[in-house]
């Protein structure tokens, strides 16, 4: 029997880039194929070709052994291909039913939408595949996991046999990921085939039958999940040996750089989300803030960087209170900020790379003389930073929005690290990045620490916190519940604290420390 789907020699050029280079791929019926690769390796381009959003320059597509040509999404849908996009294609102000029926609306009495019929079908599908969804719910009211289930139902409603999921776990909590995997297993058990696009090694090994690895638009190899290991896949992806462990010397903490006392901050909805947090960060150490997302970390960072007003409490940086300072005053005191939402707070997307690289200093000499910007100096400086920080960009004149996520993050890191800094506030610095970029950013942060910079690292990824931090502050409901030395702390103990268990009780349930000295970074 021929494979359900086969791609032969798919090639796609974009201006100046070869996005896909003679890619061969095949998917068997009832199996899960993982498409693994770094950001920018060409995974999404390939799938967009398959779904009819892009036209390939060369290559053939076979479905059940028969050659087909796909010009637009309706062709793909008609051939039984369905796609769950990374950024959901759902309309928040409409109900699940309306979203599912859009494009293939059944009609009653000549002109009216037959919503009842669709709702009934949704319930049938949701029963068959264990996809719990309320057809009448508005998408905007649903959590992300439920929205994803609506997307999957949308695809199944169109009777797709091949489901493409583009980075489906990027937006999910660990529990939701478990739920998604259950659904995928029941899909293949019912004879569907799945293409699962990701750059997360752990997930690939957990769910896939076969794994095809892409690098710079080429297929590096296809392996059976059973025979693969994280190390092997990582080096296939990146093209060199990847160091899965952060190596660092013991810290030598100096004077207190950042001191936070009894801090109260409100979020945008005026709720008190930082609720009396106190801690210190010293020069030459990494203080990690661990906690489940939404426990006040975001607002804490906003307050420290002057982006949100402080309700009460004190913040001082190098013994100077900065509670009422503007963001510019704070950064002029030697504070670098890698923001959680890099596209909203870190970059001005339509601006060219060179301007984004001097956003903190453009008004100072040598970049400005009186009222005039010194373009020559700025361009020269930008060129130097792009080389030094290995930002992959066609030139320093292209809008920063055209760069991949990892390279956008490198632009921020380059900008912040190129100034003399005393304190680095890094919020989820590796969110959504691939293995190579994560390794790079981690090493840079440790480098800064060794130079004597105080680092405050906020991240919901426990592995990242443990790998980088010297001390770990656990944040729960806006308070710092405990501060522990990182070298020997145990993950289960941290997990209990993050879930709100009191330190004394958590100690009884799990020992606080182990003898581990090197912690493996997991992706």
């Amino acid at each position, binding site marked *: 029997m021929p494979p359900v789907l086969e791609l032969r020699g798919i090639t796609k050029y974009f201006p100046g880039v070869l996005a896909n280079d003679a890619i061969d791929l095949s998917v068997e019926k009832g199996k899960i194929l993982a498409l693994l690769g770094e950001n920018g390796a060409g995974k999404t381009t390939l799938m967009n070709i398959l779904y009819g959003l892009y036209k390939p320059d060369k290559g053939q597509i076979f479905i059940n052994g028969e050659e087909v040509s796909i010009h637009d999404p309706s062709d793909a849908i008609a051939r039984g291909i369905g796609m769950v996009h990374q950024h959901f294609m759902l309309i928040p*102000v409409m109900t699940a039913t309306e979203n599912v029926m*859009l494009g293939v609306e059944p009609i009653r009495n000549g002109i009216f939408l037959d919503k009842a019929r669709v709702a009934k079908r949704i319930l049938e599908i949701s029963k068959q595949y264990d996809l719990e969804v309320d057809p009448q719910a508005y998408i905007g009211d649903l959590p992300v996991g439920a929205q994803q289930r609506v997307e999957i139902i949308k695809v199944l409603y169109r009777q797709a046999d091949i489901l493409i999921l583009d980075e489906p776990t990027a937006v999910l909590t660990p529990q939701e990921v478990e739920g998604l995997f259950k659904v995928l297993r029941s899909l293949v058990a019912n004879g569907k085939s799945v293409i699962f696009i990701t750059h997360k090694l752990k997930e690939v090994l957990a769910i896939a039958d076969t794994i095809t690895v892409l690098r710079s638009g080429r297929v590096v190899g296809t392996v059976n999940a059973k025979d693969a290991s994280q190390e092997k896949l990582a080096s296939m992806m990146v093209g060199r040996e990847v160091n899965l462990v952060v190596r660092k010397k013991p810290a030598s903490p100096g004077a207190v750089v950042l001191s936070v006392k009894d801090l*109260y901050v409100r979020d945008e909805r005026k709720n008190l989300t930082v609720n009396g947090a106190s801690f210190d960060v010293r020069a030459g150490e990494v203080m990690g803030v661990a906690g489940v997302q939404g426990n006040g970390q975001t607002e804490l960072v906003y307050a420290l960087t002057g982006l949100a007003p402080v309700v009460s409490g004190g913040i001082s940086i190098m013994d100077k209170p900065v509670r009422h300072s503007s963001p510019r005053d704070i950064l002029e005191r030697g504070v670098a900020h890698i923001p959680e939402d890099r596209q909203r707070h870190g970059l001005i997307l339509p601006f060219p790379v060179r301007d984004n690289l001097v956003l903190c200093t453009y008004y100072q000499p040598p970049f400005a003389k009186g009222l005039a910007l010194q373009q020559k100096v700025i361009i020269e400086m930008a060129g130097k930073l792009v080389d030094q920080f290995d930002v992959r960009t066609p030139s320093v004149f292209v809008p920063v929005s055209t760069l991949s996520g990892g390279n956008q993050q490198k632009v921020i890191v380059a900008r912040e690290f190129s100034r003399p800094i005393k304190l680095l506030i890094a919020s989820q610095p590796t969110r959504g990045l691939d293995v190579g970029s994560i390794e790079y950013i981690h090493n840079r942060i440790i480098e800064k620490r060794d130079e004597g910079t105080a680092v405050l690292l906020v991240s919901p990824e426990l592995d990242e916190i443990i790998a980088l931090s010297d001390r770990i502050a656990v944040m729960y409901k806006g308070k710092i519940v405990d501060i522990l030395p990182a070298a020997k702390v145990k993950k289960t103990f941290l997990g209990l604290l993050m879930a709100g268990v009191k330190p004394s009780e958590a100690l009884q349930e799990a020992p606080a420390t182990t003898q581990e000295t090197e912690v493996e970074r997991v992706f």
Partner: protein
Amino acid sequence: MTTNLVQKNEKKTNLRNRLAAGILLLVAGLAIILLFGLNNKPGLYTTFRLTPQGDKNVIPIPDLVLPVQPAIYILAIVAFFVGGWQLARGIRSTGILAGVVAFCFVAAFLIWAARDNSMDLVGMMNTSLVRATPIALAALCGVISERTAVINIGIEGIMLVSALASVMVATLMHNLYAGLIAGMLAGMIVAGLHAILCIKFKVDQIISGVAVNIVGTGATSFISNRYMQVHAEQLNNSGVFPNIPIPLLVKIPILGPVIFENNLIVYLMLILVAVIFVLLFYTRWGLRTRAVGEHPKAADTLGVNVYLTRYVNVILGGLIAGVGGAYFTIGSVGRFDKLMTAGKGFIGLAAMIFGNWNPIGALGSSLIFGFADSLQVKMQILKTPIPSEFLQMAPYIVTIIVMAGVVGGVHAPAADGTAYEKQ
């Protein structure tokens, strides 16, 4: 301790908002007394006529006769009472509060303005509906265009062009229906131009709309000065659609003379509002239209043709605005004068926003603007001591108040104003 302080602050803010709204109501009550309640001779009466004079179609009902002083006091007391209630207990809905204040104030104003006189209330309501007609049609054009995320601020220009086209064709062909069709076609052509600029060439939608307005006012003013006024008899003298009483329905007191005794264009407006409401929320066209306006990429990935949907809706909007343009000439005075739309296209856009991009809401807010317009006319007839220049400002002042104050809870289509780029 800090937490307590914070909670206290929170309570303070709530209390402050409640006090502010309550005090505003009390001030409104006081204003009613100060403006309208003083200097009234005792024993004055205001008569509101509920049956139009000389109308033989409708079943007659007695007039509403109110004693001026007590009625104004009662309205002031209602405002005071609601204000007091707000201060003591707090009312959640600001909509109810705004409604009560507006009603008390307007009613007191009418009673005061028509004191010792009689006022044709039904006639005024009918004028409101008639004056709301072009505004509602403009708003409807805006609704179906913006529901696909194409902003059309060129409605004013579209209406001017179709006003001119309809009266010219109607005069030349001696046929009002031909004029109406010509108005619709003219609207579709001008809107089509806007559509091509915005959708195909991805010109900024505001700039394209401004261009449509400039071309519309410029071209119609030129043609008007050069031909329409010079050869008025041959080109600019069409007559108007007659009022058609609807049998039976016209007999209903109040409703009959207000709604069921109008000309074709007013009926057409009411039908279009209802039809587009149903189409927009209960049919395939409507679902796709809304999807394209909210998330064009999602619609595209499901095989909906984003560009086609936008073309269809913008041009259909042009047709509706064309009917609105025809109202000014063959629906109301039978001749074209330059700039005769007088900003109704823009007021229509305000009505669309205030009506939350919903046809029924757009009609409702158009009626508020129409009421302000007819009030202004009425007040000039009644010879109130307010200068007529101020009265003529009424519809525009209402627009500003509505746009500045009440709007806020509305939701524009998410992709509104952005061109769609297919990869």
